[in-house]
């Protein structure tokens, strides 16, 4: 039921939008600590708040640049696009939403996948584009992830997926739900092939994405302060008719409750992945 937290009618998916505007202006306000900070300083720190270490949301392409060795990323399955299987329309037609998201983000759908090297080690690397309909998982996302996992099996390399998603994409109805089954099935096959899956959870990772491939990592890493959960906080607060405590469902909470292996600073993420990949490679 609770893949999506409630928000304005124009918004179609997923978790509340709290992205700081890193794009324009000399100064920006951190959404986590509310400090006004110098933009160049944020950029230098890898789009992390220099005051409170909150990692700002970044695009799939930016994420790949921070993790893949320079020039090694080779994109796959970029030719898959949404088919609007239900002829869905709310305040806008689903087809139009997809087109608008493609124009806004420059990617075909909410995940970018390919082969890469991380610290010299070959992997399949997939990164979510939260700006594309809240990173929601419909048929294209499910199919790209599944093909990427199958590519990893064929190439005999590990899989790294960096999630940022509000969950399943309701405009594709039940077919979105089935992508949970499909990606979990692919990971079952990856495991039987003796290959590891490293799951990186970033702000936010909720709903049908958390409740499928994202929580099936052999190792699960999380960026600091990322919202990670099944239900969105708004839905939970409405259910229990009480406000939620500070830090509820954040990475540190999930670490404390045994749901993730470690919380890793963005600047240390690549090196941490490399160390883990070396373990599996040896």
């Amino acid at each position: 039921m609770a893949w999506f937290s409630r928000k304005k009618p124009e918004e179609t998916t997923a978790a509340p939008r709290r992205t700081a505007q890193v794009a324009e202006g000399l100064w920006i306000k951190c959404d986590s600590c509310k400090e006004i900070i110098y933009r160049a300083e944020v950029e230098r720190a890898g789009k992390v708040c220099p005051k409170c270490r909150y990692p700002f949301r970044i695009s799939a392409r930016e994420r790949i640049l921070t993790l893949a060795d320079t020039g090694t990323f080779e994109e796959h399955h970029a030719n898959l696009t949404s088919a609007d299987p239900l002829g869905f329309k709310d305040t806008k037609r689903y087809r139009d939403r997809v087109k608008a998201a493609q124009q806004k983000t420059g990617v075909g759908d909410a995940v970018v996948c390919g082969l890469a090297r991380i610290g010299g080690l070959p992997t399949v690397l997939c990164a979510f584009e939260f700006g594309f309909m809240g990173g929601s998982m419909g048929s294209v996302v499910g199919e790209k992830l599944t093909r990427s996992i199958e590519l990893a099996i064929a190439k005999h390399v590990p899989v790294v997926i960096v999630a940022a998603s509000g969950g399943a994409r309701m405009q594709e109805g039940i077919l979105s739900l089935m992508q949970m089954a499909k990606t979990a099935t692919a990971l079952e096959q990856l495991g039987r092939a003796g290959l590891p899956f490293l799951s990186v959870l970033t702000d936010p990772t909720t709903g049908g994405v958390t409740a499928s491939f994202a929580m099936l990592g052999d190792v699960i890493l999380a960026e600091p302060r990322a919202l990670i959960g099944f239900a969105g906080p708004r839905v939970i607060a409405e259910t229990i008719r009480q406000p939620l405590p500070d830090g509820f469902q954040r990475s540190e909470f999930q670490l404390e409750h045994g749901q993730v292996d470690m919380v890793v600073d963005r600047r240390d993420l690549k090196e941490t992945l490399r160390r883990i990949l070396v373990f599996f490679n040896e």
Partner: protein
Amino acid sequence: MPDGLDFEQPLLELEAHIAALRALDDPLKHGDEIAKLEERLQRQRQRTYASLNAWQRTQLARHPKRPHTRDFIKLLFDDFVELHGDRVHGDDAAVVGGLALFEGRGVVVVGHQKGRDTREKIARNFGMPHPEGYRKALRLMQLGEKFGKPVVTFIDTPGAYPGPGAEERGQSEAIAHNLRVMAGLASPIVSVVTGEGGSGGALALGMGNRVLMLEYAVYSVISPEGCAAILWGDAARAPEAAEGMRITAPDLQRLGVIDGIVPEPVGGAHRDWDAAAGLLRGALRQALGDLAGMSARHLVEDRQEKFRRLGAFEEESRTRSG
């Protein structure tokens, strides 16, 4: 008629009228009238139930008198020994399961369980499981696998419970883990959506080699109310959302998500539990029979291929790299 749905009312009134005539001292005097009314009732019934929309079906799927998992278990199986607990945290009453005999053969049964009266509804958390419910289901499915027994699952939930305890104990992990284990389970799995199939909380019991749906059951990625709240900021527009999301059994069969529709007695399963169970028994017998001869490997491949195919997308033929 306390529990009648809007579209049921005219039928229920007509039924009451006929019953009243029959109860008169001299029913023979009214024989012609009764016959006429019964003919009208039948026509009207057929018209009503042949054209139910998604929202009306949702109401039938949630009907307070609809048979729940334990009712079906009682009617379908020769014996049932309920087992409890996830061996980790507790026993979730929103999921029931155990060892059953189906036409003389041992099967493991697991299903969501809603309550009937207020007290039971609360005790069973309205059929919304916590992680321990999914972990109990997982344990029982693996028990079936260990002893080569088929697994039958019944799906009837508004969804997994969105509460603090559920989050603390890993609701997402519990659901995800079930999906992965079901994908590789070396026993036959038959899943039946008997009522409400509410998103991931339903799918966590739903990765069958055969997925069946009762005629008026619904199955969706999010509840119609939740969908309407997000799209239009108005949960009251749930009927539109129900229509748009394609949540009915015929819709899901067209989309390739389910393998068969189990007919319900006229008016819905709640009108005649025995007849509903009888129809389901036939469908179960056939599904289990189809899978009985398959090797463990074949069963896993069959299930994996089934879920691998699901989805709809466009693919430009150009290959791209670099």
